[in-house]
Structure formats: structure tokens, C-alpha cells
């Protein structure tokens, strides 16, 4: 789980800040040309409609740039493979950075969501993973909470003294906390409220040998909307690792 989240986080961190040239005054034509919906991005990719044009142009740099060359190879491989992106695919997912309130305090955390089918032509998004520092329930420093060796002789009365923030101090050494289960519990108990999604990205694994991410660029240029923001070569083994962890497969 952690390995996958680290991989995803590292991948996201490749994003490049964009300082776009602003064009003002031709609202409708600019808006018409932008890739306004994720579905529109998928359609353009599937139609192999100027694949280089689907990249964030600021990321590509000049034609001599290594990123530009990688993008060209990506486009070549996409055309050769004939791979398609479909909404119902299990090999794409959303990475939503959420702003919320935990016990009234502002917090940020990540939710990974994937599409799940529940009948013919029926689909829904489901939360696959949750990631956030406060989901790890780290005990405070110098926390000496423990259940003493003779507690069994006193009906484990000490259990009633365990404080909320010290709960992991009494867990087994090898216990691996499931942050997603903590997320569900916090929401269920009303401790955590999700306010809004502050950043949204989608990761696609459908193209053989590649993994890529798209995000939406809000700028008044013709290169705007949902665009490829990072690409990386990946082998089948690592792809399987990501997907197995996403779907809790052993």
C-alpha cells in the first residue's frame, strides 16, 4: 500500500508549474478549443487527434528537449499499440486532493478513486485508498503509554486509561495500519468532513509501457483544459503492483 502511494506521490511531484501567456478577449473561441471534460480528453486520445497537442505545452519545452522527445515516443507508441481509454476501464483512477475539517481543524488528504460496475451499463466511483498524515494515528512524542506486564491480573483495567492519540502505542510491533480504514471510521464517526476537492488528477495505465497523468489547466490560452502533465515509462510488473494494491488483490 505504502509503496504504491509513494510511487504515485513521486509521480505527481513531477508536475511542473506553469506560467502561461494570457490571452484576453476571445472568451468563446478559447473556451471552445480547450479540452473541457475528461471524457473529451479520452475521445481525443482515442482518435489520436494530435497527441502532442494533448500535452501541457509548457512541460514539453523545445523539440530538442528530452521531455519533448519522450512525448514523441509516447505518441508513437500510442499510435502503434492502438490502446484506447474507456470510462469503464479498471486501469485508470482519480487522485483527489481534498480539503476537509478534522475535529474542526483544516486538513488536506488524498483520496484515490476508481470506477466500479454494479450492473449492466451501471457504474460508480468508489474510494480505493486514502492517504493523509493524520490517518496514520502517530502517537505523540515521549508517549509512554503501555499495558503493563501484570495488567492481566487486574482485568486489564489499564485499557480504560488509553488516550485517543496513544492508541497505536498499544498495538503489535508488526501491526500495519490501514489508512483507508481510518478514513472510513473518521467519516463514519463524524470526526472528519470533506469540504471540497482542491486538486484533481487522473492517472492512466492503459497504454503498454507507459503511465501518464492529466490535470486541468485554467489559463486563457489555446493549450488549456485537461492536458497530459507527466509521462513515465513503466514495466508490466510495476503496473501490476499498482493495480493489485488498488484493488486489494493478493
Amino acid at each position, binding site marked *: 500500500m505504502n509503496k504504491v502511494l509513494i510511487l504515485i506521490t513521486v509521480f505527481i511531484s513531477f508536475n511542473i508549474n506553469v506560467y502561461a501567456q*494570457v490571452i*484576453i478577449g476571445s*472568451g*468563446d*473561441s478559447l*473556451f*471552445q478549443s480547450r479540452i*473541457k*471534460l475528461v*471524457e*473529451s480528453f479520452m475521445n481525443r486520445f482515442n482518435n489520436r487527434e494530435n497527441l502532442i497537442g494533448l500535452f501541457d505545452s509548457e512541460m514539453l519545452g523545445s523539440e530538442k528537449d528530452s521531455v519533448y522527445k519522450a512525448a514523441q515516443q509516447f505518441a508513437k507508441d500510442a499510435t502503434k499499440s492502438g490502446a484506447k481509454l474507456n*470510462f469503464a476501464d479498471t486501469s485508470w483512477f482519480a487522485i483527489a486532493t481534498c*480539503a476537509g475539517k478534522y475535529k474542526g481543524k483544516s486538513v488536506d488528504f488524498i483520496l484515490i478513486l476508481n470506477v466500479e460496475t454494479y450492473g449492466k*451499463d*451501471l*457504474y*460508480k466511483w468508489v474510494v480505493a485508498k486514502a492517504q493523509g498524515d493524520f490517518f496514520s494515528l502517530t502517537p505523540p512524542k515521549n508517549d509512554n503509554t503501555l499495558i503493563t506486564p501484570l495488567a492481566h491480573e487486574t482485568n486489564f483495567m489499564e485499557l480504560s486509561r488509553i488516550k485517543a492519540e496513544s492508541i497505536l502505542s498499544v498495538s503489535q510491533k508488526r501491526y500495519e495500519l490501514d489508512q483507508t480504514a481510518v478514513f472510513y471510521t473518521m467519516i463514519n464517526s463524524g470526526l472528519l468532513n470533506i*469540504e*471540497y*476537492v*482542491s486538486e484533481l488528477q487522473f492517472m492512466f495505465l492503459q497504454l503498454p509501457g507507459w503511465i501518464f497523468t492529466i490535470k*486541468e489547466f*485554467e*489559463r*486563457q490560452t489555446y493549450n488549456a483544459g485537461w492536458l497530459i502533465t507527466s509521462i513515465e515509462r513503466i514495466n508490466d510488473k510495476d503496473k501490476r503492483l499498482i493495480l493489485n494494491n488498488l484493488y486489494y488483490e493478493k
Partner: protein
Amino acid sequence: MKKLLITLSIALCFNALQAQTTIVDAGIVINMPDVNNEEHQKLLQQRAKECVKQMNDYISSMTATQKNGHPTVNDRYKFRKAAIALFLNEGDSITLENGTKGAPVMMETTSKNSKGRTIKTTRPVKEYFDRLIKMIVEKRTYTDVTITSTDIEAMDVTNIKKVGDRYQCVVSYSQDFIGRRGELTAYADRTKKTITVWFVAEKTIWGDDLIPKLGDIAAGETTRL
């Protein structure tokens, strides 16, 4: 007359496209569209875009000031009422099957805090309209406001998706806001919005039909103009 003919032709066209599947919902027999049928998709997508355009026109009228119409406060509330009628359950909460109340239709808006970070606020769509009218009438921030949105041709719409026994799609559009103080433009921005459109079964003079009803509206990052 032209509008009536268009509606009539759409209704006839829709009847001609009836799929085999039918269900009974609140006593109305609904002819279900086939989500895999391209013609059904196009027809419903067009209806969704027209509904969104209608809402945007009402917002423009609701907020029009001396430079573009100067409606009375009563007029503004008439436009608000007309806009609200386009929303699912008129923007109010829906009582769920288990008796609990669901959330009302929500409108997301964006702003930047002092650190430059984008903050999103979500409020019921009715409250959003009330605040818009209040801002115009009180003239505290701006003396004149213009809100315009993209035309139907510039809107994008997703394929129709089935959700239980209902159908939905999402339409994207862009909204420009210009606030003036006197002759000077004090603030101008452009925000990309995406809105969920639900299709609800209703009896119409043409027979049982699926009518678009607006749902939640999400806001992208705002760009200053």
C-alpha cells in the same frame, strides 16, 4: 412559433427513437433511452445544453444593472424563481427512500485567500442566487455587474450515464463576471463550470418524456481578466 416547432420535432424525434426497455416510476410509464444509442445520446445532450443555457440567461437577467436592462427587485426574484424551476426538486433537498433528507442542489464558488491559495465554498443554489441579487441591489461592492456565459456551441457535454433508474450527464461552460464601480472595471474574472444534468420523467403534452433538471455545479479555478 419557431420554438414550438423545434420542441415538437424534438418530441416526435424522441418518440421515434423509443427503446424497448420501459419502467414504471411514480405512475408514469417512461420510455427509456438506450445509453449505447448515438441518436438518443445526441438528443438528450442537446436538451441538457439548452437547459444550462436557459439557466445562464436567467442569471444574466437576475443580475442585470442599469447598463443592461435595470430590472426591478421583483423582476430579479421572478428570474430567480424561473432559474430555480430548472433545478432538480427546485434546488431543495430530496427525501431519500429511507426517510432521511438528502442535500439540496449545491453551487461551488472559488476565491483566493491571502496566501494565494484557491478556496472553494459550497452553498445551496437558492442561497447562491439570493446572494447574487443582494450584491446587485445593495451596490456595496459594485455599481454595475455583467455576468455572461458561453453559448451552446462552445459547451461540451459528456455521454449520458445511467444511475440506477435515472440518467445524467455533465455540461461544461464558462462564466465571465465583470464588476464596475462607476465607469471603471473594478474586477473581472472567468470561471469554468461543470454542471450535472439529470433526466427526470414527466408527463408533457407530447406524452411521457425525459426532462432535463439541473444538479450540482462545480467551479474550476478562477482566472482574473
